[in-house]
């Protein structure tokens, strides 16, 4: 018998509080602790010599520390002013970009001269990073469904002298309308986020949000496959810690979309393949789950379309 309205409400309350989510994380092998995400910057190597930028920032009194698991990236340890208002920032010599969020774009192989889709691009941090990794060659098609966010994206592109990008106000679930086939697709999909970047997260989010986002993410994955060339690569990323938006979606993609996960070498833990009693495809362990600490929470996976 289906649960009544009141029973469903009561269930939802139980399945939507801090304790509920922390219990799930514990089942995944992570115990809640105080975290301290740090501000990070990434040098735009297409515009600047890394050492020169670092020297310039140090001369302004900014204390920086190299991030061991990333190229061209530094923790901003101390600064007397906002790093988003220096001449060097305004000239596009560096970007302020959260450290875990810098990982997805680096997972693609051989980006030079490729045709790349950045599917949910605003506010554009990863688009600029892709252009940097591509050395402004090839072409990036950057989409976002919210027109008001495109101004921020365009602003970033101009500030950082990105030259290889075309931006559309378009829902990724309609990308096949553009009739373009892509070599590489970055799916930094809309997600439920995580408590590391939102103090109110536990009181604002419910399991229903997670389920709704997971369904949307599957639609985006399915559409992305339609526009991916044979042997093309997808990098799927979320800043959610919920398996429905991560491992479960990848398991579904592997079983239904002719995609294979690829081994990646990056910061983070191997994703679990047995979650809440459900056995997933063994290749899901190629994904990386990043629990919040110095970075926010994150999940990344590299997928390749098998040749027809």
């Amino acid at each position: 018998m289906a649960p009544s309205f009141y029973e469903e409400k009561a269930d939802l309350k139980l399945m939507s509080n801090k304790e509920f989510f922390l219990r799930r994380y514990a089942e995944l092998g992570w115990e809640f602790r105080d975290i301290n995400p740090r501000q990070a910057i990434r040098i735009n190597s297409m515009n600047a010599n890394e050492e020169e930028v670092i020297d310039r920032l140090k001369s302004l009194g900014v204390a920086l520390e190299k991030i061991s698991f990333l190229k061209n990236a530094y923790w901003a340890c101390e600064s007397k002013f906002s790093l988003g208002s220096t001449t060097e920032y305004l000239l596009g010599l560096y970007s302020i970009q959260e450290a875990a969020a810098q990982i997805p774009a680096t997972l693609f192989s051989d980006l030079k001269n490729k045709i790349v889709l950045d599917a949910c691009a605003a506010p554009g941090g990863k688009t600029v990073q892709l252009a940097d990794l591509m050395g402004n060659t090839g072409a990036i098609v950057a989409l976002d469904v919210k027109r008001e966010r495109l101004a921020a994206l365009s602003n970033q592109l101009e500030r950082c002298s990105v030259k290889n990008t075309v931006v559309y106000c378009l829902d990724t679930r309609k990308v096949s309308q553009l009739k373009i086939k892509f070599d590489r697709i970055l799916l930094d999909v809309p997600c439920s986020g995580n408590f590391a970047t939102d103090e109110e997260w536990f009181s604002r989010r419910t399991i229903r949000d997670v389920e709704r986002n997971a369904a949307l993410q599957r639609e985006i994955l399915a559409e992305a496959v339609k526009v991916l060339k044979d042997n093309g690569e997808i990098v799927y990323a979320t800043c959610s810690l919920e398996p429905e938006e991560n491992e479960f979606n990848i398991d579904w993609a592997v079983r239904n979309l002719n995609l294979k996960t690829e081994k990646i070498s990056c910061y983070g833990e191997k994703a679990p393949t047995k979650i809440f009693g459900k056995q997933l495809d063994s290749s899901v362990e190629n994904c990386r789950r990043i629990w919040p600490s110095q970075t926010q929470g994150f999940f990344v996976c590299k997928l390749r379309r098998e040749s027809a």
Partner: protein
Amino acid sequence: MIRPIMDFVKRFDAELRLDENFIVKKRNKCFLLNEKLKNFVRGSFFYAGIYLGEIRNGSFFPSISLLKMIAERAANKIVVDRKTEWLFICGRDIFRQGIIKVNGSKRKGDFTLVLNIHGECLGFGEITRNLDEKGSGVYVKNILDIGDFLRREKRNS
């Protein structure tokens, strides 16, 4: 569309060759594409390639990207000291004592690019007093500077 851009560039005593076939317009904004990118631009695009500027009240107003392109060539330029650099990107005008070096025109009424000591383009302004004239007060009036990126973000947020 190319005519107002070229007329603007000339005000810096500079020359810039742009291929009209690679310039696309979206409403009042114009963008410069390259050969590859041209294949991916559909009518509904929002932004593409290099943003060159826009028509405002019938006149062409440049982007920072276009100014950077002009700065790579021989053109009217002044180099300013660090303090003046900071004031300029905060939207302030330029006084004579902040100017370290002048290339090209010193004539009142001409446009000049404003560079920092690293040779990076910070924006442009109009020369309001001949730059070889002794005196105090504003010599270059700020028209556009890179601080505009922050001001735009504030406007959009």
